[in-house]
């Protein structure tokens, strides 16, 4: 035990005197999380919860115009903008800005829209209460319109979103106007001051439930993707300092001396695994802290950790162990630090790309989604997704832990084989 502690002390000293290695371990992943989370934020929002910014002109300045404006403001999906350069939009400016792509959608409620709707409502009510002896003549009412301008590159789904939102609003306004008119006429006929109240909530209510289990494909936001993704990536990058440490130790001849010390080789390797595993856990915790406390300061969503801290710890240990074992294997296989660093970094970047670190697996083609399953970085990421997004616990992440442990054991066996070959 004392020899293990001695080796741990030595490894820790070596690590903390390697400034370049420390920067690689701690700073690089944080920079990556900042950059990637910011870059990908809007993309993830588009996938999940995009709010469209809509340029809006209320030329009507009456009930319909105000009702549409209020409805859009209250919408979950749409933000309206009424001014540009400190002045209310004019129609030409709005068309120009939409055309330039500044806004993806422009909405204009033309002057007189309410008046036309009022006339139509009045006609409909009068027609409904028509006396056979005094038929109602259908007046010439010009159809009222709400005008929509779309940026030609807008996605079809966004176009439909706006159409649906406006249709819902205009149907509601139309129905209300007819209803109010009708209620007023009924009151007149019955000679009462009581007027029926319109209930905008409707009769049929939509009841929504989110059924979330481990099989559910839940879309993460940019923080929920990028923090665990780059944490896993950074953990695997531990192989650069670790393999370098092993190779330098071997090439300097220190390993010869260590192998001559009683029982010390096991302690030396054990200490390396423990120290570098601990470093990966520290990396992971730091990345979580960045996701919880720092990214929200940049206007990004707060990282949600799920509700099973124990599962999170186990998942982090399994991922860190896989990364450490990979570094151990590369350190045993390669003869120079440069070889190990080049192969190690390229292999991690490829495994990261395959594993959904750069681009989430759920937006990859099916073939690539299947290939992603061979990447240990994907196993780590999926495990964290299970905890963060699906509320998973230990039993839910067991398959990912199993794969990571199996990978670690294979890497350790490879390391053992190559270490023993050095005696031949």
């Amino acid at each position, binding site marked *: 035990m004392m020899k293990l502690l001695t080796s741990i002390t030595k490894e820790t000293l070596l690590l903390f*005197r390697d400034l370049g290695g420390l920067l690689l371990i701690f700073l690089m992943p944080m920079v990556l999380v900042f950059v990637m989370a910011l870059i990908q934020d809007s993309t993830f929002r588009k996938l999940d919860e995009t709010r469209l910014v809509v340029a809006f002109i209320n030329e009507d300045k009456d009930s319909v115009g105000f009702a549409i404006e209020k409805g859009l403001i209250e919408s979950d999906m749409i933000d309206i903008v009424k001014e540009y350069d400190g002045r209310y939009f004019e129609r030409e400016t709005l068309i120009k800005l939409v055309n330039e792509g500044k806004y993806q959608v422009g909405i204009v409620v033309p002057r007189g829209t309410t008046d036309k709707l009022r006339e139509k409502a009045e006609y409909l009510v009068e027609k409904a209460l028509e006396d056979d002896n005094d038929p109602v003549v259908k007046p010439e009412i010009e159809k009222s319109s709400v005008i929509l301008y779309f940026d030609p590159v807008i996605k079809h789904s966004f176009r439909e979103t706006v159409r649906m939102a406006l249709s819902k609003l205009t149907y509601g306004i139309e129905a209300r106007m007819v209803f109010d008119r009708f209620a007023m006429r009924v009151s007149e006929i019955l000679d009462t001051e009581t007027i029926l109240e319109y209930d905008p909530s409707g009769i049929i209510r939509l009841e929504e439930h989110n059924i979330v289990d481990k099989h559910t494909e839940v879309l993460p936001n940019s923080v929920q993707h990028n923090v665990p993704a780059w944490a896993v990536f950074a953990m695997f990058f531990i192989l650069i300092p670790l393999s370098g440490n092993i190779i330098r130790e071997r090439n*300097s001849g220190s390993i010869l001396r260590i192998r*001559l010390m009683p029982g010390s080789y096991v302690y030396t390797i054990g200490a390396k695994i423990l120290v570098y595993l601990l470093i990966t856990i520290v990396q992971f915790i730091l990345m979580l802290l960045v996701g919880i406390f720092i990214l929200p300061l940049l206007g990004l969503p707060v990282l949600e950790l799920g509700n099973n801290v124990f599962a999170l710890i186990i998942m982090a240990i399994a991922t860190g162990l896989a990364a450490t074992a990979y570094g151990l294997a590369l350190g045993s296989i390669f003869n120079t630090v440069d070889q190990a660093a080049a192969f190690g970094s390229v292999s991690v970047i490829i495994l990261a790309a395959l594993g959904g670190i750069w681009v989430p697996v759920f937006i990859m083609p099916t073939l690539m989604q299947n290939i992603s399953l061979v990447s240990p970085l994907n196993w780590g990421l999926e495990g964290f997704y299970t905890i963060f997004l699906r509320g998973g616990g230990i039993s839910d992440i067991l398959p990912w832990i199993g794969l990571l442990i199996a990978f670690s054991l294979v890497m350790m066996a490879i390391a053992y084989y190559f270490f023993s070959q050095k005696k031949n």
Partner: protein
Amino acid sequence: MGNIAIKIENISKTYLGSLVPAVKDISLEVASGAKFGLLGPNGAGKTTSISILTGLLNYDSGNVFINGMELKKGYKKIRPLIGLVPQEIALYDTLTARENLRFIAEMYGIRGKQMRQRVDECLDVLGLGHNGHKQVRKYSGGMKRRVNLAAGILHKPEILILDEPTAGVDVQSRSMILDFLDELNKQGTTIIYTSHYLEEAESLCNEVAIIDYGSVIIKGNIRDIINSKAEYTDLESVFLHLTGRKLRD
């Protein structure tokens, strides 16, 4: 076999992937307390022999006995008896000399006050007492060689194996190292020494073996070897006569 520190019987070794044996059928005996020089041109098999002696390299055939114990069977007991000073500076260059030596001492089970005393003693005796707090990478070549030597003797081994311990050092450091080895030998440590500096080997060692192309070509007392032929004037003339003047890779 009581006063025989090392006995090598017909050792052969061919590296994986090589067709040519690095050592073939080598047999040697080194008495306890001897200063034994293992000499030879580049690629002769010196480092391979040392690696085999220390148990760091497997051999294909033959036997090695250390203090009467067979190396392969008694390796756990033999390891603490051997001190190795490799040709490379086998130290962590971002650690200080003291941190390097503390690590090695503790791995040999030397701890606490005893460890601190032993580390200080080794640093002082090799003239590094005032520089023990500096990182090894900031040392001169000679200082590194001296720490390398200190690391090999911290646990007071009975047999000290040195592979080119004075390579690339200045005259002062070399002189100090050789004096120190001589002193260590007087205290009973058996010394196995390889070097390309033949005058150094001649002054330090009492017995030598010259190996070439993996085989021992002569072994024995230095004086006896030099006196065995009229054309031998010193160890260098013996060496050149036996190994030739052809350049080696």
